[in-house]
């Protein structure tokens, strides 16, 4: 177990930022801490790093207590804050070299590592330019370069894709994914659920300081959406088609949309659906199995929570 918390709680005065958090992350996992802004993700991360003291509960990261043993913990854990800033008048190289010195790396080793991480992040050419002129994407990559400088066992990324254009975000996510192949445990937080769902092994959904849902994306979809298989079809005419499809034993729900229908089913029943549509005498234009998205899981979950309340 790389990261483990028990009953982790943080209060700011009377406001509870994080409440009774039980988090267990295994070595080599990519874990997504997801939820809207202000749901306690950053506070959790700061407590994992010992940058904020917990009000109650236990934290162990790599078996170390962040409050009592912060130095050996921070030597092995890399952290990229949500709004990462650098000394703008210093070059990328100088910024990295300051961090290398803070980590106590010997100069020769630091130089070799800095060259390697800058190369890997595609910043080798701009290494000697002042960071003040860097774009948001370049800063973010420089941040990741800095994290890799200490060759960490665990990497914690707070909103790594925030403020990046879609292309840069995809590229950055790919870089994060490549950490997994090196055996680095990754914990990332985000409120952009659809962006990160592809690279997370497991996700935890935060709501008002509590971890309300946790598991693999498909599991969550199965649990919350009732059926993990979502089929979209377009056909003309649509009349009577919905009732006919509802009658299929595997279908749990049918929704009519502008162009076609959306089915939820317990299995992949595309052949049966196609057959039913053709038997009804309609022309089938498309039939697609949709991947469940975390956004939907999230939206549906809170819909249900509100209904229950």
């Amino acid at each position, binding site marked *: 177990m790389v990261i483990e918390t028990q009953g982790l709680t943080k209060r700011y005065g009377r406001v509870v930022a994080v409440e009774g958090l039980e988090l267990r992350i295994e070595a080599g996992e990519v874990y997504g801490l997801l939820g809207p802004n202000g749901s306690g993700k950053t506070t959790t991360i700061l407590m994992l790093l010992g940058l*904020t003291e917990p009000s109650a509960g236990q934290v162990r990261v790599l078996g170390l207590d962040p409050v009592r043993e912060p130095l*050996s913990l*921070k030597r092995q*854990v890399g952290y990229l804050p949500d*709004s990462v800033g650098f000394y703008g008048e210093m070059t990328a190289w100088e910024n990295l070299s*300051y961090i290398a*010195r*803070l980590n*106590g790396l010997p100069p020769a080793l630091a130089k070799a590592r800095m060259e390697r991480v800058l190369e890997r992040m595609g910043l080798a050419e701009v290494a000697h330019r002042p960071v003040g002129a860097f774009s948001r994407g370049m800063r973010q990559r420089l941040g990741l370069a800095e994290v890799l400088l200490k060759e960490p066992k665990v990497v914690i990324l707070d909103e790594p894709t925030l403020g990046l254009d879609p292309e840069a975000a995809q590229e950055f996510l790919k870089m994060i994914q490549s950490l997994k192949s090196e055996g680095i445990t990754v914990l990332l937080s985000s409120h952009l659920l659809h962006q990160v769902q592809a690279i997370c092994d497991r996700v935890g959904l935060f709501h008002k300081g509590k971890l309300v849902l946790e598991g693999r994306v498909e599991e969550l979809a199965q649990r919350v959406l009732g059926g993990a298989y979502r089929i979209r079809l377009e056909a003309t005419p649509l009349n009577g088609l919905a009732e006919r499809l509802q009658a299929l034993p595997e279908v749990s729900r049918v929704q009519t949309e502008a162009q076609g229908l959306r089915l939820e089913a317990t299995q992949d029943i595309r052949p049966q659906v196609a057959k039913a549509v053709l038997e009804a005498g309609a022309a089938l234009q498309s039939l697609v199995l949709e991947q469940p998205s975390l956004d939907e899981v999230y939206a549906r979950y809170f819909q249900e929570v509100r209904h229950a309340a």
Partner: protein
Amino acid sequence: MQRSSASRRREGSPWTGLWAVFFKEMADHLSSTRMRILEVLILLSAVGAVYAGAQTLRQTISEDPFLLLRVFTAAQDPLPSFVAFLSFFLPLAAIALGFDAINGEYSRNTLSRILAQPIYRDALLWGKFLAGLATIALILLALFLLVVGLGLIFLGVPPSSEEVARALLFLLATLAYTGVWLGIALVTSVLFRSAATSALAAIAVWLFFALFWGIIAQLLAQAVAPFDPFDPESELRQTEALLAFSRLSPNTLYAEAIQALLNPGVRSLGPVLISQLEGALLGSPLPLGQSFLLAWPQLTGLIALTIGLFAVAYVLFQRREVRA
């Protein structure tokens, strides 16, 4: 802080990373534009003051045993003395170096990144404080050598060893005085999130002590020890009260310390009664050791004030949330 775990100490040394911070900050200071501006200002005023002082000295006191020290303190009418210039500019220099020490890290979003490295907050604060102090010490030393050199050129008299020793002690006192203002700037930089507010607050403190504290000390002294025309001792009491109140200001402490150190003729920094002067050889200089003893309370006061202010900044900073 959990009481139960108070007995368990945190691992490692709080100084880890101190020198990395120190050298980075020092390099920042020495290459920053604001430092250039200050250097030019201080340099100009120093050269002006010394030149004017030397002109006066050449005309008036040609047989003074402490010529070098006179270079520091002599003033020619439109221009104040070198020492007066220093006591005016150095607080400003210290404030300029320290007012954005901590809040600057917040506003650049670098604080959480730096604190995620294997160092304690102690190292960051100490590194910044020491770098500021070392920068000032460097400027002071350069300025001091410049003044001594100029003095030699203008006056042509080499300083005696006692003069050099007194001048070095004066340098130490000046450094302690600057440390107080660096401490004040550090405290405001932790207290206020905006660098402009922090600078303004520090300058307000400086103005308060430079302009208003003298008046306030007088009012307080009059209130505490009212002057009674039929009681001659009440006058003495009032003078002593005034002195006690005005010594709460670092400016007074510094002025008194350098008065004792740079002027060997000064025998007391407070009121002296006629009876105490019995048997004294008026006008004869005190030996260095005695002058040092005279300035000792003021010196320790300045150093204690510096340490106290640093401690306040330390406590405030340790309790600050990393997140802005």
